[in-house]
């Protein structure tokens, strides 16, 4: 079963706090659906901290999470975190793609 969730209804137009991300993942991890599409439509900005938290939560979630409609600004922030991960030696490896979302390696 697939479920589509619009992020603006959970966060507003901008995602600023790690707590809001972790709460959100707690919620979706409880869902029955195995596959969840997270729709970034109208999300104008995600902070660097939240992009980091998002990736860490996605990495440990048992759900198949697919991102949709990520803006260039949002993709750029994930790219930024990807570079920081390389420097810091974080083992989460992923590709940022506006069409397929964040593809974990």
């Amino acid at each position, binding site marked *: 079963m697939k479920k589509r969730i619009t992020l603006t209804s959970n*966060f507003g137009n901008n995602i*600023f706090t790690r707590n809001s991300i972790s709460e959100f993942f707690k919620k979706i991890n409880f869902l029955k659906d195995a596959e969840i599409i997270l729709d970034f439509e109208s999300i104008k*900005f995600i*902070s*660097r*901290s939240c992009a980091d938290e998002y990736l860490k939560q996605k990495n440990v979630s048992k759900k198949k999470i697919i991102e949709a409609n990520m803006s260039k600004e949002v993709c*750029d922030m994930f790219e*930024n*975190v990807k570079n920081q991960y390389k420097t810091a030696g*974080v083992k989460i490896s992923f590709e940022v793609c506006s069409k397929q979302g964040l593809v974990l390696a």
Partner: protein
Amino acid sequence: MIKIEFPRGDDVFKHLSTTLNILQEMEKGFEKTKKISLDFSEVSWFLPCSIILISNKIREFMDRGFTVIEYKTPKNKTVRSHLEKIGFPLGNTKDGGSYVSIKHFKKDVKDKRQVNKKVNELIDAIETKLPCQFGDSIKYIVGELSDNIDDHSEFEFASLMAQYFPTKEIVDIAVFDNGISIPKLFEKHKIEFEEDYDAIKKAVWGEVTTKQDEIARGFGLKTCKNLSIEGLKGELHIISRKGILLIKFGKEPIFYNLTENSLKGTFLYFRLKTPKERLNIHNFV
């Protein structure tokens, strides 16, 4: 009644020093008389940094159960009117064309998304008042700071305020939480430092993180510093407990400890210049 007088001019540091003395007097006065009495009658100039700190202190007193305030308004009509507009003394939900009035919020321990909601409201309000050259820089700074407050500060009250000065082409942003302060947080996590200003320095230069079990943490304040100082050629003032840090574009940072005063919580004040062209934040963070 405490006579309020601020220095003339725009020197943020002078205004903050005066304000810390006022806060101390307020605290002493409140302990003695359980009254808040402020005489603003001679005030002819102020900066947002002073007003937000005094306003937050009043909210804190009110939260301790006190409801009566004696407040003598400024004789100067323009100052009086502007103070009213920005919501002094108790905050305001309405904003003006070039400012976001004082916003206080009390921590709701049940709502983990509270700070995210409040900062979204603030950003929605600020965005319309700033030139587009700022790009996502203000969102980045306010976002990282609010995440720090949410994640680490254990605050009861947080306060935010912003003002754009169109003729000077600068924006002032003030963020204050009355939480445990950076030095106290470090003590709690057994992170060593010598003086309170040393703790601030370690936090701002990203030398340590309180989440040592997680990697890629401790970038927040460091990247805010890079963006505001290098990207926006601005200045950043931080006061946390007794420590003070002042960083200005093109100048050596200044660190020191307050000798007589101490601030309960952490105060950050940014003064940022409007870039000539739209700023790409990723060049600085």
